[in-house]
């Protein structure tokens, strides 16, 4: 087990390293950063001075190692757009808003997906199942940005029940959390349904029934426990996806999180901030995946020995 964890950990580090290379080269691909930093009429002397200040006059590999060394300490330099802020500082400052929104979305999706996933499996091929399927299919087919605009139009503008955008009260979270969560509800529901169907068919379930256990205990205790492994891993992946997938919804609802920061930074070509966000997001995803793999290996011994 330790060996497995160690190998997976080293592999994750490798992934992260590849990401730093990609991010670094992408930032350099966009053309000379000096063109963004300096006004059009800047002279050669000015260009040299600024290039020297930012370390842009040194060879590329040297720039990369400087970047990597500083990145390891969480230092991605100062933002070009938001003067007086460090890139990492901005990301850290915006992170709580993103985490808040994603955790609400996750809470909503689990609270909905778990009971509905189980019940659609138990009441397979009933009207309830059909409605559940439609709900899930819609969730996986609605473009979230459009859903956001339409919900905003109906509930915030026309009916005036909820605020249109921004962050503040609990009510501000309702619409973005629905947009963010629906897709996940749909995916999780389908997963729970299909693994519940497998379990409901198995021998030990028949045994629990023969034993005379009440039906609710058979379903909610014995079946669910065995059907939960696949959805559990998916749930963990969802965590990562929500944190990083908030880019679209945050920009629709002007939610001041890292996603919105990312969009603004890319538009302003503020590559210090973009680099910081990409690396932070990738680290989150990698850590979540690592945790899932370890959890999975812990639950299912066959994986450890592959």
């Amino acid at each position: 087990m330790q060996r497995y964890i160690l190998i997976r950990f080293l592999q994750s580090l490798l992934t992260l390293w590849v990401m730093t290379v990609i991010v670094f080269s992408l930032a350099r691909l966009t053309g000379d950063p000096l063109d963004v930093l300096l006004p059009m009429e800047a002279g050669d002397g000015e260009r040299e001075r600024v290039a020297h200040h930012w370390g842009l006059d040194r060879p590329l590999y040297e720039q990369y190692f400087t970047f990597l060394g500083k990145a390891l300490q969480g230092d991605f330099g100062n933002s070009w757009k938001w003067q007086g802020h460090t890139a990492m500082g901005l990301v850290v400052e915006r992170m709580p808003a993103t985490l808040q929104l994603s955790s609400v979305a996750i809470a909503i999706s689990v609270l909905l997906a778990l009971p509905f996933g189980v019940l659609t499996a138990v009441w397979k091929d009933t009207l309830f199942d059909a409605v559940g399927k439609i709900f899930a299919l819609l969730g996986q087919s609605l473009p979230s940005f459009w859903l956001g605009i339409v919900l905003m139009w109906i509930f915030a503008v026309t009916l005036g029940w909820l605020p249109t955008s921004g962050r503040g009260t609990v009510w501000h979270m309702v619409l973005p959390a629905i947009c963010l969560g629906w897709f996940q509800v749909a995916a999780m529901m389908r997963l729970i349904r299909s693994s519940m169907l497998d379990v409901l068919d198995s021998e030990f379930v028949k045994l629990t029934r023969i034993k005379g256990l009440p039906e609710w205990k058979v379903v909610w205790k014995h079946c669910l426990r065995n059907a939960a492994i696949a959805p559990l891993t998916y749930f963990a992946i969802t965590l990562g996806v929500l944190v990083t997938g908030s880019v679209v919804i945050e920009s629709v609802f002007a939610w001041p999180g890292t996603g919105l920061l990312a969009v603004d930074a890319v538009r302003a070509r503020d590559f210090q901030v973009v680099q910081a966000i990409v690396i932070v997001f990738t680290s989150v995803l990698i850590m979540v995946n690592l945790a899932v793999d370890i959890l999975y290996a812990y639950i299912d011994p066959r994986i450890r020995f592959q």
Partner: protein
Amino acid sequence: MAIAAPSQAPWYVAPLRALRSIFQIRQFPGVALLIIVFLLVIPGLFAEWIAPHDPIKGALSARLKPPMWQKGGSIDYPLGTDKVGRDVLSRIIHGSRVSLRVSIEAILVSGFIGTTLGLLAGYFGGKVDALIMRLVDIALGLPIILMALVFVAALGPSFTTVIVIITVFLWSRYARQIRGETLSIKERDFIARARVAGASHFRIMFRYILPNVVNTLIVLATLQLGFVILLESTLSFLGAGIPRPTPAWGMMVADGRELIVTAWWISMFPGLAIMLTVLSVNLLGDWLRDHLDPKLKNI
């Protein structure tokens, strides 16, 4: 007492049964197929001949006309016009082309790359497998929308950029699936016989293993079609898709966003087009999976 005749069943049973049979997805999704043909394929292929107006040049005199069934609308512009007087319907028809082209090309390219790498990884195993699966892990770990934004900022928005971005994320799913199937197929007898008969590695992979994973490929491609259309429209909503002035559905939603209160139709209809297309593609994919390849049910 006689046994109750079937006609004495409660009144609500018949309609419920009818409703149930409509929604049974196992049946052939004919409606879905019709929607795909009429919303994606035909407009995508024949946009110039079908669209009633020019999708790019608007008539300023016909700005912000509502759809024809609303007061002030006209039959000339069935779904209304946007703020520079362009016909929303014509733009949706031309937008199908972007969705169709992007999704087909992206799926073909990533399917080709992913299948080849998956076959190599599964067939040779060992170091080749380890290397390719590492790449798969990296691709699956990328924050997709964010990376797309960075790519576009770096390379500039273009048709090729969009295809490259989608391919970077998509190939890994093919590779993983095909690798898994190759692993089990290569243990079968006919592969050993082919080897004894002197077939080359290349021949075994592409003549003997590949035909056995074609069903999986078809199902995977259909299931991903919806995802790719959604992804493309999300990118174009964020301004990272096909560059203007080519109309794309996501971009149209973004254009109408500010006007949703006064001119709801500008972003409503392209959004509906995305939703209906993706919904139908997903339905079709589910059906194909159930019939061609039931072991894929967790995808």
